[in-house]
């Protein structure tokens, strides 16, 4: 005889009802769903491949970051060497297949110590000495930390930029040390978003060199660009007219950091789309005024990510902190530029490494396929269980349906994302969930064969199988927790479903099925029982 306390039975019923409450909203259509009380308005999070949308993965260009960092260290080192009168033949960045490092070749052995001291001022460098060469490599640790910081800052900027476009429910997440995942439900063609997040959007203001002339290149034409220290030629795209290379002073006079607003506008004179910008009232406005006074009636240039947006002439001193960028824009381009400027610049270049988009029809097909597969899996397993164990098989079918319900409720409450392999995992859980019941029933059969009376056999079967079930489920649970801890992406998702499935199947076996059997046995106390 197995006895299950009233409390156990009632708490089991309560848990199953809660499972029902939190799983059925996922099956409702939108209208019925909206009528539900707030607390029940949770549905299973569908992965992008099921609901349709785009997924973009970006990677911080860590090589570029490293290079820029090395260059700034090089500059600083040169300065210090000169200051301390240390003679050296050269200091440069050496690139080997394993990575790159700063190499300082000294002329005198006695300088090694002081040179090492200069380089070890920044603690991110790993320094080694070989003869007269001092090698300093940026440590991997530091680069990782650096990348992490860049990723954190970038996520903020990307969120701003995407929010500006009005797209719904974007999901922006860090992935590993140097990646960012952007998910856009419902967006089928991510081209616009990619343009928006692919740009660093660093806006700078420079003076234009007066001695060198701008050089006009027709489309496809190659031109020779003269060189001059402190000056660089940057391209200004003029559409069909080709490209104008503008000689620009390297020194940055003003950056877009102190911008407070940017809006798309129509230029009053030309009727072309343009972007009006506004600087903050303290620093930006003052610098703008200084710049326009310095370059009054002279040409200056507004540069975005190494390209000249426009290179006009200051007609007056600008005291109010506003200006207008009149480039060669279409409406869309001007709008995108305004968004970029409003959202601020990214701390580093991000490259798109992965991109997936799924149309809504495929997602709907996958969901209905997944539903069908789950239903058929359920029916097949139910049929087989009833065939093998009769009424007891039927009991496990009841607990199996609660199992599925609770699994859905659990996924909903955990906010886990249901993916295509996730649906497959659920269907598979159906197959494996009955395992505990099979173990118990087989144990009961063994007891009956050994001559034990049915009632006692059932109680004994439960007791004996308990240990086995705990051991096998705990092994799985430990495995899935470790997988969750160390895995990424699809592995994590799998681990959640597996762990949840294991815990729920333990519950249904030892609470639900056991309660049902206990109640049933009470009613059929005197009849013959065949398991």
């Amino acid at each position, binding site marked *: 005889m197995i006895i299950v306390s009233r409390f156990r039975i009632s708490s089991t019923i309560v848990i199953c009802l809660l499972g029902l409450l939190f799983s059925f909203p996922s099956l409702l259509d939108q209208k019925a769903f909206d009528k539900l009380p707030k607390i029940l308005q949770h549905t299973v999070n569908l992965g992008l491949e099921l609901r349709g949308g785009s997924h973009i993965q970006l990677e911080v260009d860590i090589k570029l970051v490293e290079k820029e960092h090395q260059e700034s260290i090089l500059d600083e080192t040169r300065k210090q060497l000169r200051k301390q009168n240390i003679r050296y033949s050269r200091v440069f960045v050496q690139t080997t297949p394993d990575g790159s490092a700063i190499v300082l070749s000294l002329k005198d052995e006695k300088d090694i110590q002081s040179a090492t001291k200069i380089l070890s001022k920044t603690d991110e460098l790993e320094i080694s000495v070989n003869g007269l060469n001092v090698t300093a490599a940026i440590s991997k640790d530091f680069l990782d930390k650096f990348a992490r910081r860049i990723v954190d800052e970038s996520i903020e900027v990307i969120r701003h930029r995407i929010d500006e476009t009005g797209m719904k429910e974007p999901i922006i997440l860090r992935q590993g040390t140097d990646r960012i995942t952007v998910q856009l439900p419902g967006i089928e063609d991510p081209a616009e978003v990619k343009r928006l997040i692919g740009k660093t959007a660093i806006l700078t203001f420079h003076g234009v060199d007066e001695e060198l002339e701008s050089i006009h290149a027709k489309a496809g034409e190659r031109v020779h660009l003269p060189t001059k220290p402190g000056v660089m030629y940057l391209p200004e795209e003029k559409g069909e007219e080709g490209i104008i290379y503008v000689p620009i002073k390297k020194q940055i006079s003003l950056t877009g950091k102190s911008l407070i607003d940017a809006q798309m506008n129509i230029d009053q004179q030309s009727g072309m789309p343009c972007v009006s910008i506004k600087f903050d009232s303290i620093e930006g406005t003052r610098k703008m005024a200084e710049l326009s006074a310095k370059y009054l009636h002279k040409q200056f240039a507004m540069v975005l990510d190494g390209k000249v947006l426009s290179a006009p002439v200051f007609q007056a001193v600008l005291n109010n902190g506003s200006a207008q960028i009149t480039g060669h824009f279409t409406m869309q381009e001007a709008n995108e530029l305004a968004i970029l400027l409003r959202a601020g610049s990214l701390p580093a270049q991000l490259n798109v490494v992965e991109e997936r988009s799924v*149309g809504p029809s495929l997602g709907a097909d996958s969901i209905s396929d997944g539903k069908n597969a*789950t239903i058929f899996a359920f*029916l*097949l397993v139910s049929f087989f269980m009833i*065939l093998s164990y009769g009424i007891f098989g039927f009991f496990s079918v009841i607990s199996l349906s609660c199992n599925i319900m609770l699994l859905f409720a659990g996924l909903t409450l955990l906010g886990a994302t249901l993916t295509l392999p996730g649906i*497959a995992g659920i269907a*598979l859980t159906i197959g494996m969930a009955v395992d505990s019941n099979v173990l118990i029933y087989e144990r009961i059969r063994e007891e009956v064969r050994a001559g034990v009376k049915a009632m006692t056999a059932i109680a004994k079967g439960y007791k004996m199988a308990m240990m086995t079930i705990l051991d096998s489920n705990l092994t799985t649970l430990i495995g899935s927790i470790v997988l969750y801890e*160390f895995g990424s992406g699809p*592995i994590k998702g799998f681990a959640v479903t597996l762990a949840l499935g294991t815990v729920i199947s333990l519950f249904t076996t030892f609470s639900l099925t056991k309660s049902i059997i206990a109640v049933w046995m009470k009613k059929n106390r005197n009849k013959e029982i065949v398991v």
Partner: protein
Amino acid sequence: MFRLHLIPYGSKFDITGKSRTILSLAVFMVIVCFAFIMFKGLNYGIDFKGGYIFEVRMPSTPDITDLRSRLNDCGLGEVAIQEFGTKEDLMIKLEKSEEGSEQASAIKQIRDTLGDGVIYKRIETVGPKVGEELVSNAIKAVSFALIAMLLYIAIRFEWQFGICAIAALFHDCALIFGMFSIFPLEFSETSITAILLTASYSINDTVVIFDRIRENLHRHSKMALNELINLSLNETLSRTALTAVTTLLAVLALYLFGGKVIASFALPIMVGIIVGTFSSIFVASPLLMFLNIKRKEVEPEDDHRGTPANIG
């Protein structure tokens, strides 16, 4: 009342008697699979190699040969086109030929070549580095999970059990990877999940049998080890078969009704369940005979049935 019995009651299959032959066969299979993995390698999908996948519905039945040659003319890389369900539905896969070709322009080129009126159900672009990282991460996570499970089994049972369970898991993974290599099935992100599912099924199966062996070690302290393992295997055989069948039925439903994507995922799991069941019976348990298990001398007090009734 009718009851289905997959394994007749009181089966006495001599499993451990042939264990040397079967174990050598298992080792041989593992070696063969390893050789294939080493020399032939895996047929990595776009997930790992990097490239493009397009799932499209064409406005009318397309001439695939013509389409293939036109896409090849784009010079983007190797193009593979296959029908996907109906004649109008195509799956186009493009391996990325080299780094640096602009993604946006490649997608545009393909869109232009396919022409108007095409419905794009799915577009994927993957960089090869993402896949690489996924594999190394998967290996790391799985290794840690294996160690954790090994520890648990070693604590709950004896260390020998842990070693045997992991050996069986190793066997399963080798065989599944081998299958991916031998038949060249495409190895994609979901394949990793399929292998994880197999592993978790197999370890579960193994632990159940081990549990019975442990119990019998207490109960029949005088029985020879090979006899005892054989007895335990026979006692649990009915359960092993039943659970394998229910799980296989569920996966079969996935294979038949889950659509093309899930079907490609279900196939390795089906094989995995068969392999995992095989390894629990024929690898993990017989292997215990060759490791020196400590036997307790004390008779258990809870022996209510006695040996004869048990063997039937």
